């Protein structure tokens, strides 16, 4: 369970060597994330999503307020190792996160650090590389990978760690549509089968219609939250904060407004096909 209370994050900006100013990126944000929850975070560029993500594994520390992971306060240095073991992280830019000299080594990095037995590491690493479809590249150097391939290696590394909580910051931004839905599928599987808590930040809003809960961020604050059907029933708010509306939901709304008796919202393609054929046959 993660408890965020009145969190404020101020970045220091150095205008030159002496002069500095503060930029408020998180502005008094409170949020509880339940164990085993699949939580999605949506918001425009600069709304504070990545900053919030970095607080969840103590990469950043609160300027004000507190962040607690299973009652461990992130601002206490003694808790650092335990928190980092609990919370796995996939960063926004895979270039900054791939460190191994080849794919295998990179994925093994976290496990090596935890001093796992080497035959376990080998098995686990092969498994995770396979999950993201990169088995043909196990021995390849990261400098020879395409953008999407790097992103998949970063995700495999996080899978390998078997953390209790996984935070993913735009993990699919460079993936093709099928790899994208495969990865999202794996996240749901880890969530339902292993009870892993998933926190997914994304601009691809069609990925969030199956989340347990969606949080909307704007200007460092939470401006809306609820189940997908609650959040997507108020499209005006989403438009206001520049969040993309999935095609099916948008189309459903337009057809409903033009007089067809459709649900609000129609969350996915199957549902819209069913409702439209139902109306047609009447």
């Amino acid at each position, binding site marked *: 369970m993660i408890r965020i209370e009145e969190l404020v994050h101020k970045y220091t900006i150095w205008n030159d060597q002496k002069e500095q100013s503060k930029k408020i990126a998180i502005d008094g944000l409170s949020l509880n994330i339940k164990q085993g929850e699949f939580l999605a975070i949506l918001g425009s560029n600069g709304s504070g999503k990545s900053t919030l993500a970095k607080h969840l594994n103590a990469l950043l520390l609160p300027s004000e307020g507190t962040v607690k992971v299973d009652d461990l306060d992130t601002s206490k240095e003694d808790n650092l190792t335990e928190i980092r073991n609990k919370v796995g992280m996939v960063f926004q830019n895979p270039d900054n996160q791939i460190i191994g000299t080849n794919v295998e080594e990179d994925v093994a990095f976290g496990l090596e650090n935890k001093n796992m037995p080497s035959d376990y590491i080998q098995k686990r690493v092969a498994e995770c590389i396979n999950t993201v479809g990169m088995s043909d590249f196990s021995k390849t150097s990261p400098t020879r990978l395409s953008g999407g391939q790097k992103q998949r290696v970063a995700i495999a590394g996080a899978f390998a760690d078997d953390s209790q909580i996984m935070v993913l910051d735009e993990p699919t931004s460079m993936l*093709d549509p099928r790899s994208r839905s495969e990865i999202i599928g794996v996240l749901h599987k880890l969530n339902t089968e292993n009870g892993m808590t998933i926190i997914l930040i994304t601009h691809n809003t069609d990925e969030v219609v199956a989340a347990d809960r969606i949080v909307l961020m704007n200007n460092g604050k939470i401006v809306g939250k609820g189940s997908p059907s609650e959040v997507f029933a108020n499209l005006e708010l989403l438009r206001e904060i520049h969040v993309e509306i999935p095609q099916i939901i948008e189309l459903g709304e337009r057809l409903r407004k033009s007089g067809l008796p459709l649900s609000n919202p129609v969350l996915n*393609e199957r549902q819209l096909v069913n409702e439209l054929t139902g109306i047609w046959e009447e």
Partner: protein
Amino acid sequence: MLKGVNISFSYDKKSASENILNDVSFEINVGDFIGIIGTSGSGKTTLIKHFNGLLRASSGELYLNDKNVYDKNFDLFKLRKEVGLVFQYPENQLFKKTVIEDTMFGPINLGMSEEEARTVAERELKFVGIDEVLFTANPMELSGGQKRSVAIAGVLAMSPKIIVLDEPAAGLDFYTKSRIFDLLKRIITIKKMAVVFVSHNMEDVANYANQVWIMKQGTLISKESVQTTFSRDDIIDLAGMDVPEVTKLTKDLISAGIPLKSISTTVDEAEKNLSEVFKKNRGH
């Protein structure tokens, strides 16, 4: 304008068996808005790096206005000037102290005087919608969309005829993404240029491109209109791609017996087509 004939390429010069591109042929002309799709690792980035000579084909030919680029006498500078490349996450490459200096960098490199470069840089920054007060700001202080606009201005400042962008919308929110694509549309009509972009978002491709190229394992397997591309299930499947959600929807509705005239590739189209048939149906 730019024409490739049987271009093959391998990063590893010794083993041609490891070809990343295989006999790729294409043509890019003024007015084109081309979206390139394909699974990751299929060779999209590798292909577009050939367009401005960053990579050189192992075999095959590249023609700029009918002049063979790989000819000994051809001045590669000309290719670099005519074809502007905007990389994936270009904001990582903004490195000067101010926005204006960053935008001037390309033109100065092409041999323009400081003064000339400043004039074109200012013009293009305005064109992409960067406010004058930001010209002297540090690029790091800009928002994600502004940074990307500055990167595009930097390329436009070299007055290319073709602008090529690798996943220009990745990581952008909806509003910012729409602004970038509208900007690209304006570039085509106002500046009489061609735009080529790589994308993993089928919906963006359907909304903006007028031609779709599909890469599969280093081969360009299809070059068709948006409508034709997304109605060809066989090709989409072969390439491991997907169709826009509304295309899936209209296909399934047609299978279910609702008499739509054709599949739709955008929300606007789908709304129009569906409204029509349902109005008729409910009319009786």
